[in-house]
């Protein structure tokens, strides 16, 4: 099993396609960093427009911590597409290439193969996120410096002390890993049903985009379905950056406003992963390989 995981991981990282995702993330991040470095002030002025009529805001607002947050907001919508590129190709890609039949005549069970393939896609997902964290967080910290994190939410603002931010990013990235693994699991499930690469990739992307749009639209009729969409829960990483206040409206360092919400979302995502992977294995075990 371990060598099977090794082999599957090896296969992923020997494919040129794998590096498209890394290149895409790199170029997107560099682009945003460049944009914010050059013109971050106008972006800030725009965001602060409302606030600055009554408040005077001083300090290095556009620091590495905020830059990373801005990027995560943007990128965590796009990264699923990059994950689908690999995860939704795990089975169908081999079926398409014709290697699946040879692979399945080797002395290990289909369940073992499926688990190894899923673990390998998860490793890819995690490495992609680590790369993302490195560029979006550490490189931004290096370019923009660190300071308190001034976060503008839609109905209130949060000011986190500099020494109260980093651990939140660890939490956020761990949560993001869970969210992205859910995407990988979905792509993985869909890849069982096809014998070409494009179908499952497009299907996974479509599901993500469709659900995200439903999650985003603020139309009452959709609001009832929102809690049941996993895309709604994928953005709960943001909750790490909301802080509790005491009765005197003082923010409590090291606190999280809504920890139960994070845990609930995490549990829902975890259930999705288990169900997707289990379904993928169940279907694949019964499948006649005709490719």
């Amino acid at each position, binding site marked *: 099993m371990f060598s099977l995981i090794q*082999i599957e991981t090896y296969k992923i990282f020997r494919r040129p396609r794998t590096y498209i995702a890394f290149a895409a993330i790199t170029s997107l991040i560099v682009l945003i960093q460049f944009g914010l470095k050059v013109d971050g002030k106008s972006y800030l002025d725009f965001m602060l427009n409302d606030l600055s009529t009554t408040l005077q805001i001083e300090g290095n607002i556009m620091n590495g911590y905020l830059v990373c947050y801005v990027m995560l907001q943007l990128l965590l919508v796009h990264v699923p597409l990059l994950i689908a590129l690999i995860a939704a190709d795990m089975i169908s890609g081999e079926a398409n290439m*014709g290697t699946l*039949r*040879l692979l*399945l*005549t080797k002395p*290990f069970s289909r369940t073992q193969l499926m688990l190894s393939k899923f673990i390998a896609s998860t490793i890819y997902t995690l490495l992609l996120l680590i790369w993302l964290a490195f560029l979006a967080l550490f490189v931004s910290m290096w370019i923009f410096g660190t300071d308190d994190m001034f976060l503008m939410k839609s109905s209130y603002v949060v000011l986190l002390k500099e020494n109260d931010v980093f651990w939140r990013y660890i939490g956020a990235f761990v949560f993001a890993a869970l969210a992205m693994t859910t995407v990988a699991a979905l792509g993985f499930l869909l890849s069982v049903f096809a014998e070409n690469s494009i179908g499952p990739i497009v299907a996974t992307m479509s599901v993500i985009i469709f659900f995200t749009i439903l999650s985003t639209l603020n139309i009452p009729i959709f609001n009832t379905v929102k809690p049941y969409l996993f895309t709604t829960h994928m953005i709960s990483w943001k909750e790490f950056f909301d802080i509790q206040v005491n009765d005197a409206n003082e923010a409590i360092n090291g606190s999280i406003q809504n920890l139960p919400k994070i845990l609930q979302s995490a549990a829902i995502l975890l259930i999705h992963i288990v169900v997707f992977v289990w379904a993928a294995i169940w279907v694949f075990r019964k499948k006649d390989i005709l490719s």
Partner: protein
Amino acid sequence: MVPMQDIITVNNLSKKFRNLKAVDNISFTVREGDVYGFLGQNGAGKSTTIRMLLTLIEPDAGDISLFGLSLARHRHEILRQVGAVIEKPDVYKYLSAYDNLKLFARLSGIKPTEQQIREQLAMVGLADRAADKVKTFSQGMKQRLGIAIALVHDPALIILDEPTNGLDPQGIADIRNLILHLSRDRNKTVLVSSHLLTEIEQVATRLIIIDKGKKLVEGAAADLFDPAQTLVSLDTLNNQQAMEQLANGPWAGALQPQRDGQIYLKLHRNQVPQLHAYLVQAGIPVLALQPRHSLEDYFLQVTSGKQYVQSYTN
């Protein structure tokens, strides 16, 4: 002498795809040391049967045993001793020949040394292309790499599904020689499927012919046909006269039933010139005297003269 073991035993195997009976109650046995020909036209059910032997397709009914073990219960043990090329020899195009071979060896549960991998590649003539990505390979090279992969873990049974598909005449001859080498020099049992009758005829010790999912015949090649005996078709200006002449002369024993107005004789290849000389001497003007492959003719008989056999002979 060690008693011959049954390597593959298939009993009453059936598989249906929707309404199509792809394999219909087929039974056969492959013995140790056999080069077992699996013969049938495209769509006859050869690939489905082979895929069931390799657990790629779940049978609807029937038993499969390999090496005396039930395939359903001892899948891993059995598959460790089987090497296969299934239809097109597809491997990872983005990897080199060397890496592909190493990867599949590890999947088969062995860790070959670099030396062993290079030897294996040399055996199929790919030693100098070891480091090249497979996407640059020709069909024939891929086929040879596929065979190297099937052999890398030194299996006792080798299953080759349509191994000559898409190969040029030289490639076909190479595969034929390889099968003979594996059988004679390395004591492998080989199951080879094909719709190319000449290939089977020249290598198979035993064979099965299936059509529309059903077994038509199974047996030792020697029993089914004598490679030394050739079926000769004869066409003359006056076939009626020729028929009478032959039936009453020394060649009467070789005469076969007439078909399509043509005369058939079964005789040794060496006798063909003598037959020609006899006919000329008897004053019969010969238009054509054509030796035909024996198995093709046999095939013609059992599958009631399918068009594809004709097209192949051309």
